[in-house]
């Protein structure tokens, strides 16, 4: 491991840990990530595809601006970043000291294999006599005691599972490079001067083996949802075919049982794990892709908690288009079926009949493990805990939670006067290297290997072929490139020679990768002018075939050329549009980082929906931020003002706002945060307008919290959830209604204990810890009556009174209620922002919410770099969630605002203006809106902050007027030629 001074310590290398680490690295800090397991990636390593779009896209978490410091590589295969050092198999023992100067004691378990020497040849695994159930595949299939802990990761070397290792020494003998060391003494070490610590240890999933009624561990075909992921994974134990573990038979019928380990008071799990419902639907959809048409997928649930913005439509599609069956019933036990490999479920269906049904496989939707507490050091000052370490979060929740924790830590550091290293200064752009000033001179380094005995004759053959190449090639042989001696020799050769391009003919390139980075520090060589060909791994190959690989490498290098883009200055201020909870918290988070903020609010007051919020604690927290914002000299507040124009690119926007008086003001800013909010929806369902005692749940909240309510005679109150929502055209859950209705109901019960409260609901969406409110409501005797979209209750206004007709869920008979009040959960809608959408060129969903760049991985970015979104403008959210999103948006914005200028990266599109015909096809195809016409110059320009170098512009440009550095047309075609 490197000797870098770790300024920030991130504990846990799952989604949250990676996000927090990248956030800090992005704003210039050195980060050290410690991870208990031997691999980076967390639970995502086991999941190929995730909801709500059944894709992965984890790579979208990678830096988008300073990309050169981070490898452009699938994140499920490892995290490589110049400012991030990763310690796997390492745990925190203790944390002491003051924030800014923490001392952390860490304990590391040796991997048993030296990462510098291991070349992934796999000989150790072949000879290892110990086979144990494959933990990565959740116990399905077997692996050796020495193995790659995550088969698809080659970021770390092979690793020994000490629990099963017998130390027989076979692997040590077999290892050709002497990388295996059978020493498992734990090593404790200190890390001093840690500025802050982020706890992102994630959540452990419930182990259902303890619930004997489900027979997990006993029936092989009862599996957890994670095991199911491994079964359908192409890298899993069954290579992606959906078969059952007991007999390998194709699965024709599979059921998911929800809330295993969650929402279960018996095991102290009075919470909802929040992610399992969507997880199950996703698994059912993935299963359906693998199964035959007549196969069946059934989800048994209590409430289908589709509380995310687009989740309800996802569920509806699963049900209607993909034929996933949903059964509302908590199944209590699993029994073997007729055939002992089959599994039998007994349940009550919607017509209240008891049904017995056999399945091939049953998946237990396991949630968060109950009773798990954060370690004591988590509450140490200077330690920040990401949300996902507190409870199970879906991906966007984990990402936002990590951004919030990172943001709070960096605010503290700013306050303490601790600054990241000045990044702009020492970041040199690789494109300006001397290597490109001269004609390419290629040095070929042939590794003589220290292991393979007949390498010499192979190299003779290669060398004589290489000599036939036209042009000058310097060829040299070096012994054992994988060892320090070999590598030192390489450095010597580079320093002494005149070559400006380097080709290695050695073994696995994963072995060379980190070493090439090292070259950058010691020589003029950097990774863009280095290529390697693997001549040793795999089956024996013909000289001709090896020569082709080398020819390709040489061709690739000869065509590499310099980068000509210039850096882009950054205006270090922010524009926040909307002064509600989300906007306020974003503005304050930025101001706390000493950034000037322009806060523009349409109405005459700040606070947004604060005026409707009754909950005392929540009010206080918003008011506190509001006061801080109003008293902050860095925040310029413009009330009764509206944005009228905005132009520019990330880091450099010019906007104009107009006050109510007609006065206009021009604002220069580096980023824009949209926090335009939302409001209570209107509905005409359930005769909303026909009676004064039919009110929205927001009005109901006001009513029950009013002092006069106790004086009212209240005998019965009915609440109907999802009024006009969760069906087209407003087919989404508003997230706030269930909790609010339940709180209202409890308040009514508190004031009028004898009053009857009925809640008609479709699915109660008390996700996370708010489940407790639901539990309490049931305890307090509030009556819950479920209904479906086809069996909605009926509301009639009769002789001045209200009549609500529904169906009793237990008896199935009609019930008629005559409530004093009827409260309708109308939900929320985003504020109307068509004008802003047009000004910023961003997209909205069909419901008018602003679309994120990626709903999982980049939840507060918009498709336009430099423009961010948070709060109700993005999706339904509680005020506390909206405020967190505001902080997350501010944290994302800091990536840009913390820089004086945006440095061009190696991988960028470039326009050769002299031959550009300005046809603008490139502008139209660019997925990042990274291109624009500079009207003054009459040129097509590339916004280097937005351009990711994907090359779709270059592909559509007919005359290569636009090209991607390192992937120029001539280079690629020369490589193709060399390959044939």
């Amino acid at each position, binding site marked *: 491991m490197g000797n870098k001074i770790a300024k920030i310590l991130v504990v846990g290398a799952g989604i949250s840990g990676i996000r927090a680490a990248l956030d800090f690295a992005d704003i210039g800090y050195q980060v050290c990530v410690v991870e208990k397991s031997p691999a980076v990636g967390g639970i995502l390593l086991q999941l190929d595809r995730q909801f709500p779009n059944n894709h992965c896209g984890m790579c979208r978490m990678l830096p988008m601006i300073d990309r050169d410091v981070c490898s452009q590589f699938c994140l499920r295969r490892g995290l490589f970043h110049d400012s991030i050092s990763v310690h796997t198999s390492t745990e925190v023992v203790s944390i002491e000291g003051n924030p800014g100067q923490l001392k952390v004691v860490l304990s590391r378990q040796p991997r048993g294999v030296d990462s510098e020497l291991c070349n992934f040849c796999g000989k150790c695994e072949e000879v290892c006599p110990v086979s144990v159930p494959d933990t990565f595949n959740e116990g399905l299939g077997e692996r050796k005691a020495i193995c790659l802990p995550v088969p698809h990761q080659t970021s770390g070397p092979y690793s020994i599972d000490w629990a099963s290792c017998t130390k027989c020494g076979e692997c040590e003998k077999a290892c050709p490079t002497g990388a295996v060391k059978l020493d498992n003494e734990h090593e404790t070490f200190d890390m001093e001067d840690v500025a802050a610590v982020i706890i992102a240890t994630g959540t452990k999933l419930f182990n259902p083996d303890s619930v004997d009624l489900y027979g997990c561990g006993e029936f092989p075909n009862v599996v957890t949802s994670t095991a199911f992921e491994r079964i359908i994974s192409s890298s899993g134990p069954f290579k992606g075919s959906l078969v059952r573990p007991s007999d390998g038979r194709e699965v024709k019928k599979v059921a998911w049982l929800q809330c295993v380990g969650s929402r279960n008071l018996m095991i102290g799990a009075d919470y909802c794990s929040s992610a399992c419902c969507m997880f199950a639907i996703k698994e059912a959809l993935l299963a359906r892709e693998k199964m035959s048409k007549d196969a069946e997928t059934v989800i048994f649930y209590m409430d289908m908690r589709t509380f995310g913005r687009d989740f309800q439509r996802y569920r509806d599609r699963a049900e209607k288009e993909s034929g996933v069956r949903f059964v509302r019933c908590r199944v209590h036990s699993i029994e073997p079926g007729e055939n002992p490999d089959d599994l039998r479920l007994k349940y009550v269906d919607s017509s209240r009949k008891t049904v017995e049904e056999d399945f091939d496989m049953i998946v237990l939707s396991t949630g968060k493990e109950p009773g798990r507490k954060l370690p004591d050091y988590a509450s140490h000052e200077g330690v920040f805990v990401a949300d996902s370490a507190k409870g199970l979060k879906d991906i966007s929740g984990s990402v936002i939670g990590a951004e919030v924790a990172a943001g709070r830590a960096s605010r503290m550091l700013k306050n303490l006067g601790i600054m990241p290293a000045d990044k702009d200064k020492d970041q040199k752009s690789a494109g300006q290297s001397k290597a490109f000033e001269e004609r390419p001179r290629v040095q070929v380094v042939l590794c003589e290997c220290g292991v393979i005995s007949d390498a010499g004759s192979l190299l003779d053959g290669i060398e004589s072929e290489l000599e036939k190449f*036209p*042009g000058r090639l310097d060829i040299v042989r070096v012994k054992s490139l994988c060892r320090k001696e070999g590598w030192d020799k390489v450095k010597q050769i580079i320093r002494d020679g005149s070559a400006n391009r380097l080709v290695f003919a050695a073994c696995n390139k994963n072995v060379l990768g980190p070493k090439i980075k090292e070259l950058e520090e010691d020589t003029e060589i950097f990774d863009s002018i280095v290529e390697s060909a693997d001549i040793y791994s795999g089956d024996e190959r013909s000289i001709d075939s090896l020569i082709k690989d080398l020819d390709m490498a040489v*061709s690739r290098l000869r065509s590499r050329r310099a980068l000509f883009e210039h850096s882009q200055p950054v205006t270090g201020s922010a524009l926040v549009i909307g002064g509600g909870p989300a906007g306020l918290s974003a503005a304050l988070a930025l101001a706390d980082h000493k950034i000037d903020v322009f806060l523009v609010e349409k109405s005459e007051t700040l606070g947004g929906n604060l005026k409707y919020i009754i909950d005392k604690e929540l009010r206080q927290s918003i008011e506190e931020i509001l006061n801080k914002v109003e008293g902050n000299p860095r925040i310029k507040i413009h009330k009764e003002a509206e944005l009228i124009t905005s132009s520019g690119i990330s880091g450099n926007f010019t906007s104009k706002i107009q006050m109510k008086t007609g006065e206009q003001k021009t604002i220069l800013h580096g980023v824009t945060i949209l926090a335009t909010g939302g409001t209570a929806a209107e509905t005409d369902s359930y005769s909303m307008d026909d009676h004064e005692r039919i009110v929205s749940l927001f009005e109901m909240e006001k009513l029950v919290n009013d002092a006069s309510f106790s004086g009212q005679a209240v005998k019965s109150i009915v609440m109907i959830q999802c009024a006009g929502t969760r069906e087209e055209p407003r087919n989404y859950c508003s997230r706030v209604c269930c909790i609010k209705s339940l709180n209202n109901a409890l308040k009514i019960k508190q004031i009028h204990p004898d009053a009857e409260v009925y809640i008609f609901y479709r699915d109660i969406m008390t996700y996370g810890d708010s489940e407790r409110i639901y539990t309490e409501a049931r305890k307090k005797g509030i009556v819950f009556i479920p209904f479906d979209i086809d069996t909605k209750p009926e509301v009639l206004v009769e002789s001045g009174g209200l009549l609500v007709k529904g169906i009793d869920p237990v008896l199935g008979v009609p019930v008629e209620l005559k409530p004093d009040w009827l409260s309708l959960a109308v939900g929320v809608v985003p504020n109307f922002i068509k004008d802003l959408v047009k000004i910023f060129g961003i997209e909205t969903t069909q419901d008018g919410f602003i679309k994120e760049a990626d709903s999982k991985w980049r939840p507060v970015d918009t498709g336009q770099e430099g423009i961010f979104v948070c709060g109700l403008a993005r999706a339904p959210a509680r005020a506390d969630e909206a405020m967190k999103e505001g902080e997350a948006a501010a944290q994302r914005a800091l990536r840009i605002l913390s820089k004086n200028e945006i440095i061009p990266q190696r991988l960028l599109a470039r326009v050769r203006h002299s031959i550009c*015909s300005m046809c*603008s*096809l490139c502008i139209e195809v660019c997925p990042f809106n990274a291109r624009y016409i500079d009207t003054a110059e009459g040129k097509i320009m590339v916004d280097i902050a937005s351009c990711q170098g994907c090359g779709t512009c270059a592909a*559509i440009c007919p*005359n290569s007027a636009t090209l991607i550095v390192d992937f*120029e047309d001539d280079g690629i075609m020369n490589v193709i030629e060399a390959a044939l």
Partner: protein
Amino acid sequence: MTMYAILETNNNPSETIRSVLKNMLSEKLVDVVLVPFKTEYSSLPMPTLIADPEKMLQAQPLAPAAPFNAARQAASVLRYPTGKKVAVVLRTCEIRALIELAKLKQCVLDEAILIGFDCMGRIENDSYLEMAAQEEDITTSFYADSSMQDRITGICKACEYFQPYGADLTICLLGMPVMEKIGLMAGTEAGENIIKSLGLSTVEQPEGREVAANSLLQKRTEARDKLFSETSEKIKDIEKFQKTIANCLNCYNCRNACPVCYCKECVFLTDVFAHEPEVLQRRAAKRGAVKLPADTTMFHMTRLAHMSHACVGCGQCSSVCPSSIPVADIFRTVSAKVQELYNYVPGRDISESIPYLVFEEESSNGK
């Protein structure tokens, strides 16, 4: 209802159109007119930008010749809005190319008045010059004597797009006794305004037009299909194709003549194909021998990749080929399949997106 006016021709249809164009200028309905024009030095009609109504005398709006596809010249006049109205008199293939160029942001058609005519085809430049040496007014004889119309280029004979698309005004010759009268038809509001402002009396569209169009279409389609099948035969395998283009000199005339090859500089002239000596030598070493200039086949096929969706079949590429390679036949044949794949007709409609800019969002499972 389409606005339609009848114009008397008195055995000189060219003169009739000239006077219409002249009136458009003198009535200030347009500021300039781009129209084929016979210069003092040659009989070939050259696209010429006319501002002075008196200069219209030498215009040859209906000349059955086109030394090149004038879409590029029209585009250069219309590169960006200038606040002036520009009328352009173009053949159908030229209008279609112009519309493609507009999609490629090479010009803006907002201020343009597109005037097209029922195209009876063009005669190759050398034949035209030969004929011009013998005859004063080829245009009139071309329309008076239908046997002369058999002398048009092979690619014109196979062109089914003889009626203008999207023109503001169409000079209607189909089904008309051209020596007596022709039609002027408005296709847009701008066109109608011009007919009104010129004070032309309007009538219902004569019935003969459609019948004549259909019969010509049938003839042209037959010729086209014959061309396709004969050309397919010439390129159907790489051996045959190599023979067909064997005499290509890499002069790039075809690309220069192509109205939809809009690049400022062709990629084949850039560093992308300026191979280093090492590359050429390595190529020779690997294959034993390499013909230079290299990449002849690559050139033609790349050009197809770039513009086959937009090929309007004007035939200029064949006309300019010094080695008599049937470039146009090949491009039309290959392009037809590409255009069919994308259900795309170049120049049909300016609002129709270029195929490569639209792509279906697939469902998650890729099925």
